[in-house]
């Protein structure tokens, strides 16, 4: 039965069930344990605590029960909003309870000591925590490697006991000279001691490095130790770390510990043939000033002279040499060397790198398809240069060349996810979603990757009119999120069982992070909006859909304050300096934009739902009581009124903040549809129709006295007029002349989709008016038929409404026609014959791939327009059923 409840998500019923069972058999341990777990699932920590204490009283010899209670108290402290309550009540209680067991010598397990440490850490009682680590209890801490050592050094640092911290980290480093975190802390402690002018007592025999100078000699000592064997990178990077930290705290620039240019150069000499050399050094390049950076660029470039004096290329001879060259190129790019190049120089260098990539393939002949080609980075660097030119000089034809080059590169290196990620981005930027599902599936993106990488397709699939793909993709994503909630709870339970107390808080936070994911919220909104309009060809089907969706218009499902941005952008390589490409900054901007767009989407959905309910209201008997209906809810027309104002206000705010399109880097997030939506003026027509709905509703059983001539005129004409304007704006050609060469206008698809969506939302609102008007008309005409004299006047509203629907039908037909005429097949366009792009290379392979690309682009555009036309066709059916 518990399993059943779990499957149908009625977790509170499980707890109730065990509560009842417990009442019948109060001394049954099993029932109580199950009850405890039921409360864990619910996250009811208070009840957890009570249940665990009952268990403890029942079985005082079983320690875990007692510690379950303590952990439950700690979780109450973690979750209560009042920090004071946590620090003054919950945590001290947990501490006392643990201490009691410690004092009575009852502590048995490692988990119990860990519990004690967790509490002391939360209370920031570092001294007490240190005492535990240095006392007899610490003998139980055996599972984790170096746990005692690393934990106590952490506490020394917290306490500002730099001497102890320094000694401890120094000792740890002697056991592992490659541990970055330890180096950082060690250097920090040495510099702190220097700052404090700390000196050892005369008779001290302790090894304390209390100055930067002393730290440096330790670093050098560590470097010496490796001579002759496999060199550890740690001690060399530690030297740079010392300068970096000193620069932050002591003096800027700091050159007393050596010349960083020389150090970086030496590191390059020593480790330049490793793939990771660039990422090792990247963080230390900003120690240098501009002049020093130029010096370093010159230095390492001079070591990579692969050109004859007449300009002919000299190719590298082996993989190591190649990687060394690639590292050099990456470092130079990161130190702005490419920024300084002219457009032609960039193109020339790109050509050279494409050539080197081709040549480098010979080193990877033996590789498996699951391996990456050693020379992939040459191509990716060439692409980075071409992207520069495309972005900065607006040469649209370049993007097609880049796509062909990447497709060719992928043939040689089919596992390269870098190429796939870039290709998806570029195809979508150019309006072609078609090739993306295969690329996406080729990376085996699943489970949690739906959250971190799903955005690379979810931002485009609907936008570009691939509606059926959109349904499938959102479906997969949402399945992951709904399953996870159930699954994570089971592992919370497991953590209690195994006494992995450190993981409990982590798991709870993890669950929240997924539950409040921006991606989850966005995918939910998009999926619902799509479901609501995609298959509905009559107002009856819309009403069914709304009922099935269980939307509460008065409540936003998204907790905007708790939203988390889990998108992962660092996966896409970029060798640009942050001054040029700051992905982190772009991510923050994108997050604000995404949230703003999500608010529009959620409000739109709630407005549509509220309107539909308003139209159905006539079916229900809503007795009002103090302005509330008998179920205690706001009357729906009030809700709708609030929502309309909220959305108007929000759109207004968006106009102020987001009407300027932000320039996102290719390696970063993609924009939302917000700016297209705002610039395209799609909102005013929706709002206008909402006003009409409100007006029609205000007539209440069509009270002739309430008829307002101005509003009647508005009902009759304004929406049609606005729609016509929207259509005119979108009647553009797919191909346009751009500085004497032909170019594709990918924006058309997005605009057509927005326009179709606008129509579909209008359909819903027409349907609502129809629902309100139809019964009145029936009653009136029946009555007038019966009574020949005393005929009631038929209000003009009916006619005006009919005119509106008829006129909109006409516009919709025209939009339908426009969309179908954009289909490349209809235009009998052969994209490959239009010279939209010059060939980057003059060879068969390239020409073949280019042809293939045009074919797939064509197919993709076609798919978009076919789906848009089908969609509009359904809306025409919808409208045809709405005549009074």
């Amino acid at each position, binding site marked *: 039965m518990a399993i059943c409840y779990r499957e149908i998500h009625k977790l509170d019923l499980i707890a109730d069930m065990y509560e009842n069972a417990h009442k019948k058999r109060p001394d049954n341990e099993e029932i109580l344990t199950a009850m405890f777990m039921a409360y864990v699932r619910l996250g009811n920590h208070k009840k957890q605590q009570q249940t665990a204490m009952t268990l403890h009283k029942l079985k005082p010899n079983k320690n875990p029960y007692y510690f379950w209670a303590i952990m439950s108290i700690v979780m109450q402290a973690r979750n209560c909003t009042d920090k004071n309550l946590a620090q003054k009540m919950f945590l001290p209680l947990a501490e006392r309870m643990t201490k009691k067991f410690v004092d009575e010598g009852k502590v048995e397990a490692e988990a119990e000591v860990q519990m004690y440490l967790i509490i002391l850490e939360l209370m920031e009682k570092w001294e007490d925590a240190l005492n535990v680590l240095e006392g007899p209890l610490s003998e139980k801490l055996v599972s*984790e*490697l170096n746990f005692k050592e690393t934990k106590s050094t952490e506490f020394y640092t917290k306490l500002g006991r730099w001497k102890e911290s320094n000694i401890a980290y120094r000792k740890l480093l002697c056991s592992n000279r490659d541990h970055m975190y330890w180096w950082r802390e060690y250097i920090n402690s040495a510099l702190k001691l220097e700052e404090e002018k700390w000196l050892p007592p005369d008779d001290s025999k302790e090894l304390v490095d209390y100055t930067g100078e002393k730290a440096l000699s330790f670093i050098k000592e560590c470097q010496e130790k490796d001579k002759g064997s496999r060199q550890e990178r740690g001690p060399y*990077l530690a030297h740079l770390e010392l300068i970096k930290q000193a620069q932050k705290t002591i003096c800027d620039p700091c050159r007393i510990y050596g010349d960083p240019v020389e150090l970086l150069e030496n590191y390059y000499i020593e480790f330049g043939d490793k793939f*990771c050399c660039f990422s090792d050094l*990247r963080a230390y390049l900003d120690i240098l000033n501009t002049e020093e950076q130029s010096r370093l660029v010159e230095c390492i470039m001079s070591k990579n002279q692969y050109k004859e004096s007449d300009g002919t290329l000299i190719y590298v001879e082996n993989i190591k040499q190649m990687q060394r060259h690639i590292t050099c190129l990456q470092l130079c790019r990161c130190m702005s060397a490419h920024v300084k190049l002219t457009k032609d120089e960039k193109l020339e260098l790109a050509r050279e790198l494409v050539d080197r990539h081709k040549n480098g393939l010979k080193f990877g002949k033996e590789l498996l398809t699951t391996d990456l080609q050693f020379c992939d980075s040459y191509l990716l660097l060439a692409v980075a240069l071409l992207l520069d030119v495309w972005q900065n000089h607006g040469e649209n034809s370049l993007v097609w060349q880049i796509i062909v080059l990447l497709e060719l590169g992928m043939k040689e290196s089919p596992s390269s996810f870098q190429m796939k990620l870039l290709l998806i981005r570029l195809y979508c930027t150019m309006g072609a979603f078609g090739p993306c599902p295969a690329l996406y599936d080729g990376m085996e993106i699943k489970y949690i990757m739906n959250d971190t990488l799903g955005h690379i397709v979810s931002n485009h699939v609907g936008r570009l009119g691939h509606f059926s793909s959109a349904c499938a993709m959102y479906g997969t994503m949402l399945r992951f999120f709904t399953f996870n909630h159930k699954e994570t709870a089971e592992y919370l339970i497991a*953590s209690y069982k195994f006494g*992995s107390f450190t993981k409990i808080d982590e*798991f709870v936070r*993890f669950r929240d992070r997924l539950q409040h994911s921006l991606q989850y919220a966005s995918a939910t909104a998009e999926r619902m909006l799509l479901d609501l309009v995609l298959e509905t060809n009559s107002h009856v089907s819309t009403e069914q859909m709304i009922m099935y969706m269980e939307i509460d218009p008065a409540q936003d499902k998204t907790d905007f304050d708790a939203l988390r941005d889990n998108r992962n952008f660092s996966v896409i390589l970029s060798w640009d300096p942050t001054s040029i490409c700051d992905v982190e900054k772009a991510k923050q901007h994108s997050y604000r934009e995404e949230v703003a767009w999500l608010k529009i989407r959620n409000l739109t959905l709630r407005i549509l739902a509220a309107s539909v309910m308003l139209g159905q209201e006539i079916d229900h008997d809503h007795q009002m009581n103090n302005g509330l209906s008998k179920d205690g809810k706001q009357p729906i027309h009030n809700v709708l009124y609030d929502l309309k104002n909220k959305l108007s206000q929000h759109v207004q705010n968006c106009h102020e903040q987001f009407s300027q399109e932000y320039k996102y880097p290719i390696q970063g997030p993609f924009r939302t549809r917000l700016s297209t939506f705002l610039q395209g003026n799609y909102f005013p027509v929706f709002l206008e129709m909402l006003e009409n709905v409100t007006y029609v509703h205000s007539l209440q059983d069509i009270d002739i006295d309430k008829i307002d001539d101005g509003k009647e005129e508005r009902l009759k004409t304004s929406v049609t007029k606005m729609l016509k304007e929207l259509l005119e704006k979108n009647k553009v050609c797919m191909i346009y002349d751009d500085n004497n060469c032909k170019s594709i206008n990918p924006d058309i698809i997005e605009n057509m989709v927005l326009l179709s969506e606008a129509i579909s939302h209008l359909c819903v609102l027409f349907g609502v008016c129809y629902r309100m008007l139809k019964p009145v008309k029936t009653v009136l005409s029946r009555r007038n038929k019966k009574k020949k004299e005393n005929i009631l006047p038929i209000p003009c509203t009916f006619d005006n409404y009919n005119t509106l629907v008829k006129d909109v039908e006409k516009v919709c037909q025209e939009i339908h026609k426009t969309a179908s005429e954009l289909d490349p097949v209809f235009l009998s366009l052969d994209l490959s014959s239009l010279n939209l792009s010059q060939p980057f290379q003059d060879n068969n392979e390239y020409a073949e791939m280019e042809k293939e690309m045009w074919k797939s682009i064509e197919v993709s555009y076609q798919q978009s327009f076919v789906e848009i036309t089908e969609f509009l066709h359904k809306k025409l059916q919808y409208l045809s059923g709405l005549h009074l």
Partner: protein
Amino acid sequence: MTTIRQFTCDDLFRFNNVNLDPLTETYGLPFYMQYMAHWPEYFQIAESPSGDIMGYIMGKAEGNGDNWHGHVTALTVAPEYRRLGLAAKLMSNLEEISEKKRCFFVDLFVRVSNKVAVDMYNKLGYSVYRRVIEYYSGDVDEDAFDMRKALSRDVEKKSVVPLGHPVRPEELD
């Protein structure tokens, strides 16, 4: 230079550069969480100076009596951090933890076709204990080597004496 530390849930949000490698499987959340909940000390991650994830190892301790052993469930290193000896370091940590837990040996399964990995494990002191027939399912099922390395508790190295014959997956305990 590397930081090795315990794997946490937050790492799941940023391990894409490792897991997009075609030979690294991405599992459902329960799989990772089971290991984090039960054997947190055995699930370790290596981070680069720039904060990238370089690779990770998942393992556990299991078995009864003289079969009490450490097991390597997954070991992966991102392409750009290979050939730095990272896998060896992660393995040696796992062995050390298993020593502390008084295990008799450490074992792991590897595709027989994965020559690079088999060679590496050989170098780290592992030897083939037995062959498991069609252990990996796929378009074509593939055999696995069950490789073992004895720990100090197994003084006579009884645990690594090769089994003469291959076994089927259902015969594994």
